[in-house]
């Protein structure tokens, strides 16, 4: 038996023992294990994407952390959570002239229409979605600086908010997560 054949045989044996991953296994990307979403806008159309993405993450076993800052605080503020609006001015996706969008009552009409459509698709109102997220184990935080700026205290927020934290604290909480800014 030549030395070369022996080496080849030994290599073949090793391959079996070590179980070298196949090309397919090697090219498979690492799954997402944790997501941190910064919600910075308080309109209805900007509230839903963050909440639904966080909920979908929890449903599939991905950890989720939500950080509500600036206008995003309205999503978790007791007085505003049920009154989020769809903006009709400066929103090209409304497909109506800006002048019309500015008429009194237009925002209410657009908001009612969107809420109706959401209900039809069985998408829960924002308050229920926040409750679902809390029950799912998602972490919910308010931004300290935005709270000070809007002169709100934790009592002004819905009870599902775990804590009011600084942006630096948020990065600690988001350790190992992919971060989304909305």
């Amino acid at each position: 038996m030549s030395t070369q054949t022996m080496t080849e045989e030994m290599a073949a044996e090793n391959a079996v023992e070590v179980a070298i991953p196949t090309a397919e296994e090697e090219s498979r990307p690492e799954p997402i294990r944790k997501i941190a979403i910064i919600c910075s806008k308080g309109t209805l159309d900007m509230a839903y994407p963050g909440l639904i993405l966080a909920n979908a993450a929890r449903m599939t076993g991905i950890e989720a952390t939500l950080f509500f800052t600036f206008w995003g605080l309205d999503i978790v503020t007791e007085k505003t959570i049920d009154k989020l609006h769809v903006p009709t001015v400066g929103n090209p996706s409304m497909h109506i002239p800006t002048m019309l969008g500015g008429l009194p009552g237009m925002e209410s009409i657009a908001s009612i229409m969107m809420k109706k459509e959401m209900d039809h698709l069985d998408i829960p109102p924002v308050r229920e979605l926040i409750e679902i997220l809390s029950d799912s184990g998602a972490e919910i935080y308010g931004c300290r600086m935005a709270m000070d700026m809007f002169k709100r205290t934790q009592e002004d927020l819905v009870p599902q908010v775990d804590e009011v934290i600084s942006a630096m604290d948020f990065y600690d909480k988001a350790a190992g997560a992919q971060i989304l800014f909305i």
Partner: protein
Amino acid sequence: MASREYQGQTVEVDAEGFLEDSSQWTRDIARGIAEEVGIGELNEKHWQVIEFCRKDAEAKGDAPGLRRISKLSGVNMKELYKLFPKGPGKLAARVSGLKKPHSCI
């Protein structure tokens, strides 16, 4: 199409392990999948969810979303996450022998 063996029964599954044909499902297969995905032994509450999911899918033609399960099965959202900690949205359907649900709520 891949096939897997659960408690001596061979079934066809898709790339994510969902049963291709829900009529092949048996309680033993549910136990096998539960073990495979790390749920462990199925308790009474698990069976309550599984039975609801199968009945609902039969009526609606699609595996129910999580909110629907929590509202109609008698098992609430918090409990669902305890029963299927690695993602109740997918796992409830998978153990029930159904396709992956389309709903993200």
